[in-house]
């Protein structure tokens, strides 16, 4: 294959042509500031109104409950810090999970320094939180539960509706980071009793640097970015009109095509998972076998390290990511894989393959052909493999 094969759709996605086309005018002639009074500014304002409707419809919210942000990370920060500040007189305890995205975890760690108490719920070997753990973690001081909808590394989908039931009964605010779930799992904030929900554009073929936060009417939240009267007076800053338009279109398309696309992805996903587990020895699937995102494959290759695998895949034109943290500055492997109970060397040896709308069966087959010799080659270089073979003799 000459072409690159992009298997890292959980990291980011290519803007799809329909979104690209919708965006372009707002980078060009339709540049007016939506807050202005003159005629052409109305087009910008209408474009934002339309996008807000598209986002609201995707999760069964009302437009007045949708706020645009600069991305999933800002949405997470705002949701957690904003609720913590607004309800701090009621209590200072927050519950989250140990496998959240850093946008949630580092925000919680920051709040700990500000005097909040945070419980990080453990997960089982599939990455699921335990509802009984959640119930018993709740105290009179608990103001917020933040549990992600679906995990970005292992694809495990958490029992969101059940969590919503518990939190609503106890009168506790429930935030969920749905950055990876949007477009893959049906979401109904009313039915699921979700109070706040974070979204991002660039995981669903929208532009980078765009996001949204759903805040249920009635939930108090302290402003995060102070400034002009944009976003119903709740989030200052001249609107990223082009980004907002792109997010709206992307989310509309993603939800309307979800069912069909999920079918296709599920098949592709299973081909890859089965293909690897059946042909390469000493491999394990990370995450839940069924309760998982239709586009997520995460596999540990024993005895070898993830970045090495990625580099060799890259050499073959295949782009994926790993649970090894070689690039992030810290030397610890993925906190998610460690939370599943994986020992360090197994966490370091994991590879994530995330599928998207441009991936084909041919690409999956190419991967399954190229992967085994790479694994073999790296194992032959590995002192752990050597030790293992010797100890088995």
């Amino acid at each position, binding site marked *: 294959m000459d072409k690159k094969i992009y298997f890292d759709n959980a990291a980011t996605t290519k803007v799809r042509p329909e979104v690209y086309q919708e965006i372009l005018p707002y980078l060009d002639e339709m540049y007016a500031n939506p807050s202005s009074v003159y005629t052409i500014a109305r087009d910008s304002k209408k474009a934002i109104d339309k996008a807000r409707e598209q986002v609201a419809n995707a999760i069964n919210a009302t437009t007045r409950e949708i706020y645009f942000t600069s991305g999933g990370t800002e949405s997470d920060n705002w949701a957690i810090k904003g609720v913590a500040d607004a309800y701090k007189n009621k209590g200072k305890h927050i519950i989250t999970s140990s496998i959240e995205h850093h946008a949630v975890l580092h925000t919680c760690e920051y709040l700990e320094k500000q005097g909040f108490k945070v419980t990080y719920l453990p997960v089982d070997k599939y990455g699921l939180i335990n509802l009984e753990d959640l119930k018993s973690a709740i105290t009179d001081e608990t103001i917020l539960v933040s549990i992600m909808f679906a995990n970005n590394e292992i694809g495990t989908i958490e029992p969101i509706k059940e969590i919503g039931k518990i939190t609503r009964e106890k009168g506790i605010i429930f935030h969920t980071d749905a950055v990876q779930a949007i477009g893959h799992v049906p979401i109904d904030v009313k039915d699921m009793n979700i109070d706040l929900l974070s979204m991002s554009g660039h995981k669903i073929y929208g532009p980078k640097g765009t996001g949204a936060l759903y805040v249920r009417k009635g939930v108090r939240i302290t402003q995060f970015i102070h400034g002009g009267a944009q976003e119903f007076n709740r989030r200052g800053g001249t609107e990223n009109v082009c980004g907002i338009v792109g997010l709206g279109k992307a989310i509309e398309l993603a939800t309307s095509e979800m069912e069909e696309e999920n079918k296709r992805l599920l098949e592709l996903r299973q081909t890859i998972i089965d293909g690897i587990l059946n042909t390469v020895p000493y491999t394990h699937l990370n995450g839940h076998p069924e309760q998982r995102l239709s586009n997520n494959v995460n596999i540990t290759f024993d005895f070898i*390290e993830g970045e090495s695998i990625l*580099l060799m895949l890259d050499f073959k034109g295949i782009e994926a990511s790993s649970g*090894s943290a070689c690039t992030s500055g810290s*030397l610890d*492997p993925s906190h998610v894989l460690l939370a599943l109970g994986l020992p360090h060397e197994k966490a370091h040896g994991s590879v994530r393959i995330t599928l998207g709308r441009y991936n084909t069966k041919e690409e999956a087959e190419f991967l399954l052909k190229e992967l085994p010799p790479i694994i073999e080659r790296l194992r032959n270089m590995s002192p752990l493999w050597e030790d293992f073979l010797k100890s088995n003799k």
Partner: protein
Amino acid sequence: MEYSEKVMDHFMHPRNVGEIEDASGVGTVGNAKCGDIMKVYLKIEDGIIQDAKFKTFGCGAAVATSSMATELIKGRTIEEALKLTNKAVMEALDGLPKVKVHCSVLAEEALRAALWDYAKTNNIKIEGLEPPKEDDDLDHHDLFDEE
């Protein structure tokens, strides 16, 4: 991650991968927690490193530095090998990304651990050689986290 061409060359075509059956000294450093384990085998005769091989569990830079370090000391005297610093390995590879500097340190340490093993087995003292650290875990952490 941006590796130089030299690093990529030594990663994709590593020199000296393997074991030496009757090695004069073997040294293993690093640990799985850090994501890098290097094992170096040396064949030493008459104070000269006749052969060097390695096995590495680790990232691209770990493999490349193992490859380069073993390449640089083959045919050298023990004294010359002792002078090999992680900086020299990095320079020979046209540099390493900041977050990967620790790999070159590991390569230097693996070499010294193998020399130490040789010295211990043969009951000789090599001037300037320190015993390998038991667990150098903490040394390499958070190199990147400034301020």
